[in-house]
């Protein structure tokens, strides 16, 4: 047996090696399945350090600055997205996240209605190797309450009134209106309609995601 092996030509040896590797490959499973592994400790630390989210105010500042190094992702349904979306957002319903249409090097900012779905999506994406994914703290609800319709209490001090100038301007910029709340704290349960209409045109410098990343031609 050893003698036959030794007497094999190079081509025959290559063929034998190919057969062996091919046979072993019978047990191979190269495509990642639906099951993902999560580093629980790492996730917990990130959450604790609050390194997993971005506040609506921060996002508003980014949009005003014209930053284009992140991709804003709206996880709600297409209909909800059409009704209103944060300027510069791209609609990727949660169900499409099984095959995320993002590169792993992109900075992703996810938001959903109240932040629950975006937090879940954050965990799933992180587990699949998207190390630069973040959620919008409080989701669209927080965006509406803090950025679009910031509230100034009637009994606010002069200092607080002055400090309210910036949020008020920001609100108007995005098509919202600053509100006045009565001292009794009874804020309106229904959000006022946006003055500028449903969709605010994003500032010209903001791209639909990381700029100037066009869809690369990867064919042959």
């Amino acid at each position, binding site marked *: 047996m050893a003698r036959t092996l030794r007497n094999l030509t*190079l*081509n025959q040896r*290559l063929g034998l090696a190919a057969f062996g590797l091919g046979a072993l490959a019978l047990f191979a499973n190269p495509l990642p399945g639906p099951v993902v592994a999560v580093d629980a400790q790492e996730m917990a630390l990130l959450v604790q350090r609050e390194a997993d989210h971005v506040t609506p105010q921060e996002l508003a500042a980014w949009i005003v600055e014209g930053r284009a190094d992140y991709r804003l992702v709206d996880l709600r349904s297409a209909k909800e997205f059409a009704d209103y979306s944060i300027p510069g957002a791209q609609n990727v319903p949660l169900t499409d996240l099984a095959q995320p249409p993002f590169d792993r090097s992109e900075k992703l900012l996810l938001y959903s209605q109240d932040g629950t779905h975006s937090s879940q999506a954050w965990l799933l994406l992180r587990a699949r190797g998207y190390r630069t994914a973040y959620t919008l703290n409080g989701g669209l609800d927080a965006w509406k309450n803090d950025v679009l319709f910031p509230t100034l209490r009637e009994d606010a001090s002069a200092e607080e009134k002055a400090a309210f100038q910036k949020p008020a301007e920001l609100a108007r910029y995005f098509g919202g209106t600053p509100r006045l709340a009565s001292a009794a704290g009874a804020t309106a349960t229904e959000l006022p309609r946006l003055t500028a209409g449903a969709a605010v045109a994003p500032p010209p410098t903001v791209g639909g995601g990381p700029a*100037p990343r*066009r869809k*690369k*031609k*990867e*064919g*042959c």
Partner: protein
Amino acid sequence: MATAVQEITETRAGAHAAAAERVGAPYMNPYLAGIGLGLVLLSAFVVMGRGLGASGAINSTLAWALSKVAPAWVAGNEFLGPYLGDGSTHPLKDWLVFEVMGIYAGALVSGLLAGRFKVMVERGPRISASARLGLAFAGGTMTGIGAAFGRGCTSGQALTGGSLLNLGSWIFMICVFAGAYTAAYFVRRQWR
């Protein structure tokens, strides 16, 4: 000389004479060359997340060249337009274009090492150089159209898609062999 060559018929002796025309050192063991190619392809997968290609580089080059004379038409053309990109980068700063330039370079190195450089019109003994050049052009035209329909050529579809078990690539590859074997019969006078 020409008549002497034309007198060579399709006999074993004649074919051997043709074989003796080969220039330079003998070629590498095909299996070893294939392993080398396969490893290059694998490195493209691992480093870039994409495979090899060639026809795409031609599309980019054509789009760029035409945009010098008829930019509006190219930009509006559904097939060539995308190869111009969105204007943020030069169409020739394209992965495939650089890869194809590498093919020229790598082949040059290998060929010079083997002493296989020789200015000639490769053809069989029974056809003239100009006829061969004409047929080469015709073949190229069909190749161009075929690669456009197929979204690639043997490098991109057969090699790359083949190793990735891409369904369309295997279909394409089988059809290439079928078409080639069939057509070869009809142009055999060009080569033998």
